[in-house]
């Protein structure tokens, strides 16, 4: 069967079965995009409570995507909830034995994160995905 036919079959199936909820939750993702020429470390205590690892290594020009637990919010992540979650975010680089942190003023407001609301998707019960993207650059590190 052609891919096109499969996609149509899935969409039609979803049309009649996939939208049986009045207020489906958004999928909220926090993404750290490493635009530096070296690997960076991301410590995200609030989101890593249920993970085995609390520190993520993000290679140059790679993205670390963290999906917020939907129990943390109602339909979407409010600004206050977003700020609470990122309050313990630490981004740093280990360079020649030195640990250099990104100043929190680069990411402690919601407006400092690029926000992209992707509509019309129906992914595992989520009507849409709300992406919060922080682009980390070399200039953000205080030395």
């Amino acid at each position, binding site marked *: 069967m052609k891919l096109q036919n499969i996609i149509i079959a899935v*969409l039609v199936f979803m049309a009649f079965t996939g939208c049986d909820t009045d207020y489906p939750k958004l999928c909220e993702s926090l993404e750290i995009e490493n635009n530096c020429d070296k690997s960076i470390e991301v410590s995200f205590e609030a989101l890593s409570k249920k993970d085995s690892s609390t520190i993520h290594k993000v290679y140059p020009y790679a993205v670390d995507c963290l999906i917020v637990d939907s129990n943390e919010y109602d339909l979407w992540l409010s*600004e206050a909830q977003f700020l609470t979650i990122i309050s313990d975010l630490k981004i740093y680089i280990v360079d020649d034995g030195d640990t250099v942190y990104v100043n929190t003023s680069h990411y402690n407001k919601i407006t400092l994160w690029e926000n992209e609301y992707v509509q019309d998707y*129906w992914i595992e019960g989520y009507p849409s995905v709300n992406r919060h993207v922080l682009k980390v650059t070399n200039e953000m590190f205080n030395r």
Partner: protein
Amino acid sequence: MKCLTVKVRQMKFLKELIFPVIIGYSLAACNPAYYLPTKQNVQVFDKKGDIVAGGNLGLYGTIGAEAGYAFTDHIGIYSSLKGFNISTYGGSEEKVIRDYIWDNEFILYSKLKYDFYAACNFGVGFGEFDINNPYYELKLNRQFVQPSIGVTFFDVIQTSLSTRFTRLDYTLNSLAINATPYDNQMMRDYFMFGDLDHRDICFLEPAITLGLDFGGVKTQFQYSRALNIGGGSVRNWDQNLFLSFTFNISAFFPSPKHGINR
């Protein structure tokens, strides 16, 4: 060779017309909407003193009740309440009433020669969407003019063409406490409001009605469309079908003037 050409044409037809419709419907069916064509009241009065009451059913869980009175042979008033459910995700598939529009109309009508009928309805309506939801309050005011023309065949079969010119005015309030501009924008994105409360939105709504008039009882089948013709945009369903029954109560209680001569 000819068979192959036909097959290619069929595939092209499927790709260009059927597939987009299927994909569009499958995506849109889940999403909320904030306007739809509602039943247009046509050929409702015959003469002075008519008291009319009835109900109707339509797509998207539409259910309505209506009543009217003809003051003279040319002037009447009509009120109709329509309930439906289009404003929630997947709402159009449910048979729950969460949205309503209540219209009140002033009708000028005239029975013409050769069983023709002409009317013009001037209406104002107000409505609300997703009543008592905890996130927002969305109210609608609308004003419309609806000219119509109809004809009756064999004293029983009626057909009408009508067009409603509608202006919509939405009022949106967030119910969130201490909402920031970001939170308000998220509410708009999530519920797909767009800028519906910032602009006057205009619709053109043509309809065709076929009916049977048995004197005291009238049944009508109506197909109507809603075409956004300017102002702003709103997510809407663009067509609807209705089946209605109305009873001319005055016909069941004839006045002495219309009674049987002894």
